[in-house]
């Protein structure tokens, strides 16, 4: 081969591979996800998922885990994993959108609708907000009562037919497909029912509280709706 073509081929080859990656990058991630063992796949950016934590994945002993539901409720709850599994079970398939730009389509979730959970606790008339605390302190986030009661919001226990894995929030996490992923608090151990709004973790770092997909967090240019 012509000496000069060799360098040019290398240059164009890299550009071509990069362009293909920009168009089909997700498929490559899927293939990698199928090739590597599950334990590794869970923390690598495979299957389209990226695991973001602020302090690292917390260790939770399922035997002693309790989900507390407290605040403005008639009957504060302290639910073991078993108790949670006994509550009415809901299932859904929904897309997951991260505010940093990636998405995972058709995630199968199973868990508890918030109205079923709240029916157990009995919210008081002035209850307006659900504040979710994570085992990963100090991660918190808040949904309004109306937001939590949309038909596809839930407190998930299972993902894709299996109990949640640790990176995805075992044993319980919030699923709110209509909002960006940072609203979906993982490793939830307490739901505090409140009258007043309290900003979530990323919201104190500049993100929007109402994180509707496609209608919020135009972070690059400030002040733009």
């Amino acid at each position: 081969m012509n000496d000069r073509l060799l360098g040019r081929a290398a240059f164009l080859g890299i550009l071509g591979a990069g362009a293909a990656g920009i168009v089909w990058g997700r498929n490559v991630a899927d293939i990698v996800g199928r090739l590597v063992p599950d334990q590794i796949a869970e923390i690598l950016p495979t299957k389209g998922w990226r695991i973001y934590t602020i302090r690292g994945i917390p260790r939770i002993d399922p035997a002693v885990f309790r989900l507390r539901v407290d605040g403005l409720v008639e009957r504060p709850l302290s639910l073991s994993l078993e108790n949670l599994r006994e509550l009415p079970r809901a299932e859904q398939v929904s897309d997951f959108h991260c505010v940093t730009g990636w998405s995972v389509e058709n995630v199968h979730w199973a868990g508890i609708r918030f109205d079923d959970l709240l029916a157990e606790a009995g919210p008081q008339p002035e209850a307006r907000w659900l504040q979710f605390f994570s085992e990963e302190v100090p991660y918190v986030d808040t949904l309004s009562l109306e937001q939590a009661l949309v038909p596809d919001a839930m407190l998930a226990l299972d993902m894709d037919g299996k109990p949640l894995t640790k990176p995805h929030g075992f044993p319980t996490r919030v699923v709110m497909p209509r909002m960006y992923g940072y609203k979906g608090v993982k490793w939830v151990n307490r739901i505090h029912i409140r009258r007043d709004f309290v900003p979530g973790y990323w919201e104190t770092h500049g993100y929007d509280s109402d994180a509707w997909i496609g209608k919020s967090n135009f972070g690059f240019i400030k002040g733009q709706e």
Partner: protein
Amino acid sequence: MPAERGNQFGPAPKFVRRFGRTQRALHWVHATAFFALLGTGLVLWLPTLSTWVGRRPLVKDVHLWTAIAWAVAIVLIIIFGDRQGLRADWREVERIDADDRRWLVGRRAPQGRFNAGQKLNVIVTTAFALLFAVSGVFLWLAARESRFRWDGPIVVHDALTLLSVLLVLGHLYLALVHPTTRHALRGMTLGDVREDWARTHHSKWIEESERRTGV
């Protein structure tokens, strides 16, 4: 060529011109922007750093405006700089001859003004810069418009980051630490290198320029 006096150790060393002002300006603009973008990019990417630094919107702004400043500066240097010199450099870089191929598989072979490793470094760095820019534009669009939101650009941007860090670590080692190569740094700062060093490491370059000038 800076005049350096001889001393008791011998005559003043001779220097040869390796990089013009355009090449050096391109190199340092790219290097400065690379580290600014890497720093802000890592803060945006790694949760631990995000928490430590906070102020995510500000970091995003710095990342974006650094990228814009980088692109504008590169284009301006190319437009107003020594375009002929750059074209000649690129032609040289693209030519991977038989000596280069021998050198790349670890055998001794005389090298030109760029050795084969440097040629590949220029090729890879240029291609990566273009891909960084294109995938970055898609990421910027994705943050504002959901129909641009798919995984490809982010996968490529991340992969480029990882590969570039490896590349730059090797580059820094050769430019700052490795005894036989670190003299090359002088070529990228002052523009010239010692002739005896060039004769050892880039013999084809020196021989060719001697042939041309009739020395």
